[in-house]
């Protein structure tokens, strides 16, 4: 099933002017556990979807928050000439389609 059908929230946002962060949150613990145990969400996935070096990805599994969090360097510093997303809030869409096996 697609991640956006399972998660209560998938979002992206600037984390300061140099980094972009993603939050993937859940309401039900069993759904979170299902996604976590699928091992689909990890630093390599983020590196692949967002075309960045694996060692530049910070990835967190926050069991007590029923959430995953990933942070990557911004391709352009916030507000730099040509930066297409000032607040970084529309960069989460590739994560929505991530398929989690049943």
């Amino acid at each position, binding site marked *: 099933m697609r991640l956006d059908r399972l998660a*209560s*929230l998938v*979002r992206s*946002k600037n*984390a*300061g*002017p*140099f*980094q972009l*962060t993603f*939050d993937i*949150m859940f*309401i*039900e*613990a069993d759904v979170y556990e299902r996604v976590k145990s699928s091992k689909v969400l990890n630093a390599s996935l983020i590196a692949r*979807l*967002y*075309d960045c070096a694996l060692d530049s990805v*910070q990835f967190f599994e*926050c069991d*007590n*928050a*029923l*959430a995953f*969090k990933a*942070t990557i360097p911004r*391709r352009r*510093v*916030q*507000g*730099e*000439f*040509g930066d*297409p*997303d000032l607040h970084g809030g*529309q*960069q989460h*869409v*590739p994560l929505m389609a991530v398929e989690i096996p049943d």
Partner: protein
Amino acid sequence: MYEATAVAGTFRIPFWVVPSAPTCVTSQSPNVFWYLSKPAVTAYLFREASGTLDLQQAMFEAATDSSVRVSGARFHPASAYDVKLEGAELAGYATVMIGGIRDPFIIGRLDWWLGKMEEYFEHSVRAILGLNPADYQFSLHTYGRDGVMGELEPERNSAVHEIGVVFEVLAADQRTATEIAKLARQPLLHLPVPEWKGAVTTIAYLHNPPQIERGPVYRFNMHHVVTPRTEEEMFRIESVEIGSRVAAPAVARTA
């Protein structure tokens, strides 16, 4: 939304303290809020200038339907006093033009067509203004295709029937930026399309004239933590004596 960032070394690590909307506090009891509301659930230590913010024992509790009480956060002062520096600098002056492309023949070969347009444009700027590509920057955002995600867009080849175009140029001064933009105006408007035999108008500009002067544009240029020898070293202190019968001159002191 309550979000915060904290300095860790010389870069930032984000964290969140409540869900996306305050109403989630009570209306979605199983939401992350409650899981964060337990003590020591998420061990986060954030290195700030001059100390560490310790959220390991922080409690996040619903105070009302729309507010959150945060308690138990601690700050551990560092042994050294340090100062965070953030700075920005003038990058130049920008001029933009907004328009739309609807012709499917152009959309069908948009990369090719824009490539030709850029070639023509850069040649004109060199020939007429004597400026090389190193003297200015320009960007073409193509909304409807990859305007939001740029190079990261996984669906840039999806079928679309309309493209929003934002052309932007950055130059050393406003007049130059606008002069350069004017040289992009014509090729965006009339660059030939092979499928059509004869003169065509290829973009629907939103404004007349299409160029809009955006003014000065800035960019981040500094993001550091400095450990000075003394707390005063980095700051200029001026003391003025007030109340004496004869006005004392201002004394400037640099530590």
